[in-house]
């Protein structure tokens, strides 16, 4: 803006300001951080999408065969012709993935490996290949085989592009059934979590019960552990050797029941925060009016309370839906034979090495995730206009009976949350569940177990600190530039879109996309593949959206006048940024850094595909230990994550408190 003052008057009949040095610097920042998002988000996703349309099929017309039954060599024919004669494979049978192999002798009528018949095989075009036993043959020469050798010849497929993978996916019931399974658990978990969380939030906002502070701390605890921790707790509570096994009857915890119970646990705090916010902004005048008009409590609840909280409820519902449908750790641990999409991606890639099909399942999982995200965004935009300046905050009155009921309810929910954590800690200290219940620390001997040992815990701390530090700088700077830079509408629009995108991308999808994009030898960035750097980048990108929105909210509270004043004082923008913006927004900046820290400690989904020997993480170690059957050590590691996060949260709390005394003193007069 400073440039408008220095522009020569005679040249400026038009008022459109020319961008000055400050503006260009800010634009450069937007472009750099925007480019970061393009490289770490848009490109990998594109690589994944293009992988999903990579198809592999056996091209039988590429291979020629000659047969010698003792009367000299027959005329060369293609294998395609051979196949037509015996009608062995239909075109659909010839679809495969990159490491497919097809036996040749299956297409030869009356083949016997004992017969003296000789065979010659030739690959006619470059790029084709066949296997002689396990020897790969890629030349275009004739190769001769005895019958006994020829039975060991297999053809290799060639690549092409098309939608065949999707056709294959939807024609395989064991694959597409997962769509219904995933939707089923997401919807049921959503209904249960929202009901429980709403009642809890209602108790917090509308009762005068005691110990609200304690309840608040307890309900936030599930955020501090990976989603697979409740899965492990459920094994000890309701598994075949579980304490409460008798409650299960002939039902098994390994399956939808376990996934839903665990999902309710780990999504509860997310739903609570959103619903509580929407309940706390209700206007007391509406309740007074309802009371004055003689409406019953019930009627007030349905005509005032619920409608007032409706945006919060809808938003919370979709957040829960999204968290459950994209979660990988919990169904992996407790899902048993119940397949869901997120685990399918892992199984396709890790189990069958079918990367193309993994990409297809990723695309399928993207659809509900994107949809839920979009609806949530639309609803959230509507919520802002509910409070007016004349609103009076609602103050609950003492109602002994109501308060007691609410207290009992909250105590039960709180006890359940604590029980999940305590059982994990207890199981971690038991020597050999259930046969030797003496206490011991053997389960903490991570170094002799799968998963990377104690170094995976220190790696996690390292990752969390770096993600928190670098992420906060990148995100907040990006948000500042995009919020305060004048003009440059197009660039800002693109940036906003990119910044919102990560929230709609499930972690599994992002992780797989990273393999495709970064582990490509033609990509100059592939040097970071297998390093901690790529994990930091992946995690920052994965959690970009929420932190970006937090920054924007904080920045929007700052009047634009600051910029004008600073400009008129001829101060460069960075001085304003460092001396005013950052200190004023410090509480939000701290919130962002703790959010990134906690999530970096607990996340599994994206990083499961890109960790390397030097960069195993605590949460992934947990998963791998559980996978190998070392469930108690997995619980022990889970609790280590909890303690690390709880400590970080405590430090965050103390820092924020001190901050309010120093830079934030102006907020209270």
């Amino acid at each position, binding site marked *: 803006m400073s440039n408008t003052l220095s522009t020569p008057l005679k040249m400026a009949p038009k008022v459109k300001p020319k961008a000055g040095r400050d503006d260009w610097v800010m634009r450069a920042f937007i472009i750099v951080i925007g480019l970061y998002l393009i490289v770490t988000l848009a490109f990998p996703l594109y690589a994944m999408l293009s992988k999903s349309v990579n198809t592999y099929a056996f091209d039988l017309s590429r291979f020629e065969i000659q047969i010698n039954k003792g009367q000299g060599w027959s005329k060369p024919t293609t294998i395609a012709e051979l196949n037509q004669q015996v009608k062995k494979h239909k075109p659909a049978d010839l679809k*495969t993935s990159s*490491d*497919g*192999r097809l*036996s040749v002798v299956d297409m030869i009528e009356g083949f016997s490996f004992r017969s003296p018949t000789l065979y010659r095989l030739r690959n006619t075009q470059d790029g084709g290949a066949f296997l002689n*036993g*396990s020897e*790969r043959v890629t030349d275009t020469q004739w190769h001769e085989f005895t019958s006994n050798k020829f039975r*060991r010849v*297999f053809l290799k497929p060639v690549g092409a592009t098309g939608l065949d993978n999707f056709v294959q996916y939807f024609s*395989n*019931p064991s*694959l597409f*059934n997962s769509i219904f399974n995933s939707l*089923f658990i997401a919807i049921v978990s959503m209904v249960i979590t929202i009901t429980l969380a709403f009642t809890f939030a209602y108790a917090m906002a509308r009762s005068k019960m005691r110990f609200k502070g304690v309840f608040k701390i307890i309900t936030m605890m599930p955020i501090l552990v990976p989603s697979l921790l409740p899965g492990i707790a459920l094994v000890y509570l309701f598994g*075949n*050797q579980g304490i409460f096994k008798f409650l299960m009857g002939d039902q098994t915890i*390994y*399956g939808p029941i376990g996934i839903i119970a665990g999902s309710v646990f780990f999504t509860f705090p997310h739903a609570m925060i959103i619903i509580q916010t929407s309940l706390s902004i209700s206007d007391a005048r509406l309740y007074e009016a309802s009371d004055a008009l003689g409406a019953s409590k019930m009627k007030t609840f349905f005509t005032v309370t619920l409608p007032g909280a409706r945006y919060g409820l809808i938003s919370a519902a979709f957040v829960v839906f999204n968290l459950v449908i994209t979660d990988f750790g919990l169904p*992996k641990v407790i899902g*048993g*034979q*119940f397949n869901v999409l997120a685990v399918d991606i892992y*199984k396709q*890639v*890790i*189990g*069958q*090495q079918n*990367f193309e099909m993994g990409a297809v399942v990723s695309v399928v999982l993207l659809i509900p995730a994107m949809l839920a995200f979009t609806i949530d965004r639309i609803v959230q935009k509507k919520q802002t206009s509910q409070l007016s300046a004349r609103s009076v905050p609602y103050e609950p009155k003492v109602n002994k009976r109501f308060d007691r009921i609410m207290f009992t309810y909250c105590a039960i929910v709180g006890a359940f949350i604590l029980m999940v954590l305590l059982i994990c800690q207890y199981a971690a200290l038991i020597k*050999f569940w259930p*046969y030797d219940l003496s206490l011991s620390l053997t389960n903490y001997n991570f*170094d*002799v*177990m*799968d998963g990377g040992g104690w170094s995976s815990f220190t790696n996690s701390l390292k990752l969390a600190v*770096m993600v928190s*530090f*670098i992420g906060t*700088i990148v995100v907040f700077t990006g948000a500042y530039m995009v919020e305060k830079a004048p003009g440059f509408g197009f660039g800002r629009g693109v940036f906003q879109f990119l910044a919102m995108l990560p929230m709609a991308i499930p972690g599994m999808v992002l992780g797989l996309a990273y393999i495709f994009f970064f*582990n*490509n*030898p033609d990509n100059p960035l*592939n*040097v*970071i593949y*297998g*390093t*901690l*750097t790529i994990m*930091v980048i992946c995690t920052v990108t994965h959690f970009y959206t929420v932190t970006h929105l937090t920054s924007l909210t904080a920045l929007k509270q700052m009047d634009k006048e600051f910029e004008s004043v600073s400009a008129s004082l001829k101060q460069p923008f*960075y001085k304003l940024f*460092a001396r005013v913006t*950052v200190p004023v927004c410090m509480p939000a900046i701290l919130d962002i850094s703790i959010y990134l820290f906690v999530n970096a400690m607990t996340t599994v989904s994206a990083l499961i595909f890109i960790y390397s*020997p*030097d960069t195993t993480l605590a949460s992934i170690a947990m998963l*791998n230990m559980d*996978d*190998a*059957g070392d469930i108690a050590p997995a619980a022990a590691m889970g609790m280590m994550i909890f303690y690390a996060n709880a400590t970080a949260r405590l430090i965050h709390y103390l820092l924020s408190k001190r901050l309010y005394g120093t830079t934030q003193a102006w907020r209270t007069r």
Partner: protein
Amino acid sequence: MKKTIGSLIKGVALTSALVMSTSLTASAGELTVYTAIEAEDLKKYAATFNKDHPDIKIKWVRDSTGIITAKLLAEKNNPQADVIWGLAGTSLLLMKGEGMLQPYAPKGVEKLDKKFVDKSKPPAWVGMDAWVAAVCYNTVEGKKAGLVAPKTWKDLLKPMYKGKIIMPNPNSSGTGFLDVSSWIQMFGEEGAWKYMDGLHTNIARYTHSGSKPCKLAAAGEIPIGISFAFRGAKSKAKGAPIDIIVPEEGVGWEMEASAIVAGTDNEKDAKTLLDWSVSKKANEMYNAGYAVVAYPGVAKPVKFFPKNLLEKMIDNDFEKAANNRKRVLAEWQKRYDGKSDPK
């Protein structure tokens, strides 16, 4: 100004420093080794090797067979590993077919049992030891549920075992695949699918790893875990109330093998490691956990290892197993994976 711009620059510098320092490319004297050896043995293997070659540092990448195989295949065009030391023979045959292994005849390879060496000259891979399927049976939980210990594979089809058996998913576990592949070789392809159809109705669930079924049996989560003998022996040594049962029809087995990854930057050290891996000393080390090793005359009995196991090992055709792997796994998935309903 100094503060913010300065910290930004620091951030960038930090990132680029990270790229430099954490890059995985192994330097001379350092080998990135991919393995599926049990985690508790890794340190011992490295330490024993380092006694003879203190100048070569081993960086382990350890995961279950399926995962390591997937990782190697994913990195086909950009290999991160220098050496594979201790991965299923079937997986190595698969990689040989993809042209991912560098053939090399380690010094002293002629002393090994021929079964354990790749037929190509020079061999693309060399075997170390064999791990053998077995059934872990929890006697305490079996008694509680009124079960009789099974003696054969076919016994497991009996209705009394309904929901009492856990086995590894062959799609992710090498042990699971060797079970399926051994049933195909013993019962014929058709007979094997019929057998597995029956077994499927008794299976409580399939696990991702091959050791988990035995660990779950050891912990009493399930009475019967189809796993491998070595895992059973270890759990039993820890005090788990389990018996290791060798089904009478015969048991599948798989060898662990080693190879140099084509395109390694550190061929010299890789060859040193491979030379050492076929030595008598190395084979004595393998013998601590495996009853069968590649070097004849080395094997000594392993504690709690079932005695009749060796006779029961089937005559395994690894190449056939590797070349049919994809088809068999796809068929398995179609039949048994995700068939379970949300009940």
